């Protein structure tokens, strides 16, 4: 993303005040309405389709992304997740356990650090997938999170 760095140097202040400029700073719920509707169906997880809808490609390599999530979540309503990827301009979180696949999209601003934590809900055991866009390429990490209802592990 050399172009971004170049623009950041000269017109940094101006770009920052003109927030919805399209380079970053967008509300994906308004600009990419369909991504949020990609479903996880029985036997047909929607993660790859959601990745394609959001990033424009489903070509993703493993690596470069660190995803932290519990192996077993006693409470499926509050699952702590951390995702980070050095050099990422965008990070997104998906899963295949809920009706729709996309959970959150982070645009990393100029001085932002791609290291985010949040708490999510999973209806049942499933895969949580973090995808990072680094220099125009996509990388991912995924983790199986077991969701128990009623407290009995496994």
């Amino acid at each position, binding site marked *: 993303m050399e172009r971004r760095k170049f623009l950041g140097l000269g017109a940094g202040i101006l770009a920052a005040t003109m927030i919805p400029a399209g380079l970053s700073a967008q509300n994906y719920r308004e600009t990419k309405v369909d991504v949020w509707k990609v479903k996880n169906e029985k036997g047909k997880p929607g993660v790859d389709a959601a990745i394609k809808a959001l990033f424009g490609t489903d070509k993703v390599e493993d690596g470069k992304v660190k995803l932290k999530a519990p192996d077993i979540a006693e409470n499926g309503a509050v699952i702590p997740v951390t995702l980070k990827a050095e050099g990422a301009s965008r990070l997104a979180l998906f899963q295949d356990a809920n009706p729709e696949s996309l959970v959150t999209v982070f645009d990393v601003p100029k001085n932002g*650090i791609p290291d985010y934590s949040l*708490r999510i809900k999973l209806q049942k055991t499933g895969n949580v997938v973090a995808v990072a866009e680094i220099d125009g390429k996509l990388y991912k990490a995924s983790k199986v999170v077991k969701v128990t209802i009623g407290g009995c592990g496994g």
Partner: protein
Amino acid sequence: MRIKAKEKDGITTAKVMAKHPMMSYAEAKKKGKKANFITYVIAKVGDEVVYEASTSQFLSKNPYLKFKFKGENKGKELVITWTDLSGKTKTDKKKIK
């Protein structure tokens, strides 16, 4: 919103807990209520955007968010705004320690 923001060695770590029921479509259907959840969160220091997230119904109730950003920001105000599905917005600010 409960906000904690601390800068150390040029990196500010912010922890936010927003108050919101985050009622998903499935939950709303069960309760006969309208789904409503935070859909967008933006944090700024002055005019600079330091964090931006487009979110879904799959964040936990009273969502907890943690993020980091660079800069000499001690003493400056971190301003956080969220928007929800109903169009409501809420803004809170906290001085970065």
